[in-house]
């Protein structure tokens, strides 16, 4: 099994790689080669930093179309934090920059008010269709922009900080998380392991 981490230099690949090794025993391959990303059994799209910088990095390495196709085909792809945001159409963080547009919606900044921004720390993740059977839990978040409306189809998890927003989406082999599973302790490690073990194309 080949597991690839897209390492555009605008990401926390070290943390993601370490978590993958611990959770799955697999040795991840760090790459920006579109062919390697296309052919891999499992692909992780991490990302920290701005929406514009993340998109620019994907474009620069010719990865946009490959990632878009993988997600559309529901092939095993784990998008983390900015990685999830890049799947969307646009972000208030970088007006005028188009995202991959696979997930409908534009990211908005947390509303001004009593709560602190960025949304840093551990918050509850609840799968909307779940019975809580071990899948709901507390995850580590670090972000200032969020997807407020969940798209249709597949599974979705919500989180509450200044109102509800989308914490995760899952469809086929695709798992997109606004939180950082690689930094979410034992709960996050279990999520990564489930995603990595799931049959190609099966929901995790």
């Amino acid at each position, binding site marked *: 099994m080949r597991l690839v981490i897209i390492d555009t230099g*605008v990401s*926390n690949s*070290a*943390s993601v790689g*370490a*978590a993958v090794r*611990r959770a799955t025993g697999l040795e991840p391959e760090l790459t920006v080669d579109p062919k390697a990303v296309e052919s891999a059994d499992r692909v992780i799209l991490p990302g*920290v*930093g701005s929406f514009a910088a993340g998109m620019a990095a994907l474009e620069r390495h010719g990865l946009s179309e490959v990632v878009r196709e993988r*997600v*559309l085909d*529901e092939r095993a792809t784990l998008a983390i934090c900015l990685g999830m945001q890049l799947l969307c159409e646009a972000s208030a963080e970088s007006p005028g920059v188009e995202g991959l*547009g*696979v*997930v*409908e919606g534009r990211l908005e900044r947390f*509303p001004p*008010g*009593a*709560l*602190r921004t*960025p949304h*840093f*720390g*551990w*918050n*509850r993740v*609840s799968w*909307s269709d779940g019975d809580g059977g071990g899948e709901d*839990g*507390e995850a*580590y978040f*670090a972000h*200032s922009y969020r*997807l*407020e*409306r*969940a*798209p*249709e*189809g*597949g599974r*979705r998890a*919500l*989180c*509450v*900080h*200044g*109102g*509800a*927003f989308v914490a995760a*989406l899952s*469809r*086929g082999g695709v798992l997109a998380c606004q939180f950082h599973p690689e*930094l*979410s*302790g*034992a709960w*996050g*490690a279990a999520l990564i392991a489930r995603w990595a073990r799931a049959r190609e194309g099966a929901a995790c």
Partner: protein
Amino acid sequence: MLTATDTNLTKRITPCLDVRDGRVVKGVRYRSVGEGQGGGGVLTATDTNLTKRITPCLDVRDGRVVKGVRFSGLRDAGDPVERAERYEADGADELVILDVSATGEGRAACVRTVASVRRTLGIPLTVGGGVRRLEDALRLLDAGADRVGVNTAAVERPGLLAEIADRAGVQCVVAAIDAARRQPGEGWEVVTNAGSRRTGIDAIAWAREVERLGAGEILLTSYDRDGSGEGYDLELIAAATGAVRLPVIASGGARVARDLKRAFDAGAEAALAASILHDGVTSVRELKRALSSLGVPVRRDTADERSMA
């Protein structure tokens, strides 16, 4: 209080044909479902399930954990990897490593320490100390830090915060502010170079400034309380958290769970602790149990809770 699972949404039966290039396929676009889903009007802008963090801090010199009082009188407190593993197993919400080495060799050792800790650590890791240039920050992030703390260098050259934020993202930048009390009623001033230099800069004004420059969080240490066990400087926390919208990690002076509760009540999102954990006076698990009984929301996803379930 409403939680993330509250909804009045009814179940829908929604036939869906995913079409691409004129053919029905699986997996085209995740479409938004509109009203009532996700960001609907049921929850208000002040609702959150965010928990308060307990943040153990390891002062590391030449690859070993040390701890002192008021930034000096350092004594050995063990192996950083062992400490990190124990704190995570105990329910720590994140870890801070501060490199207090004075030499280039010590700095190189710290990068190796970060890499070793990262191999086993499954929670966020902030590393500070000796970050003077963008390259220093990137080296630590590459080694496995999730965030870097910048202190003295940011005071001397504020543009450094923006440089790191532009390259790595706002959420990677922690502005470490060491604040010392002035005369009564005159607030606090920023001290740098491990407390040896008084800058004359007002600490609260500086907190506002780092927010503007691109910090994602503030690690606010009371120079007067560091290692003292006298409790956090609550007035300092209240003044800083009142001045900025960034989350603030309170640091310096923790002894018992009530000290942490008071820091949270004063506005802190996270409470840093070092001496009391290193010395075995208490543990993260004990602190969390006590905080929970005091009504503070804390993460309970620990081995402790699972074994009870």
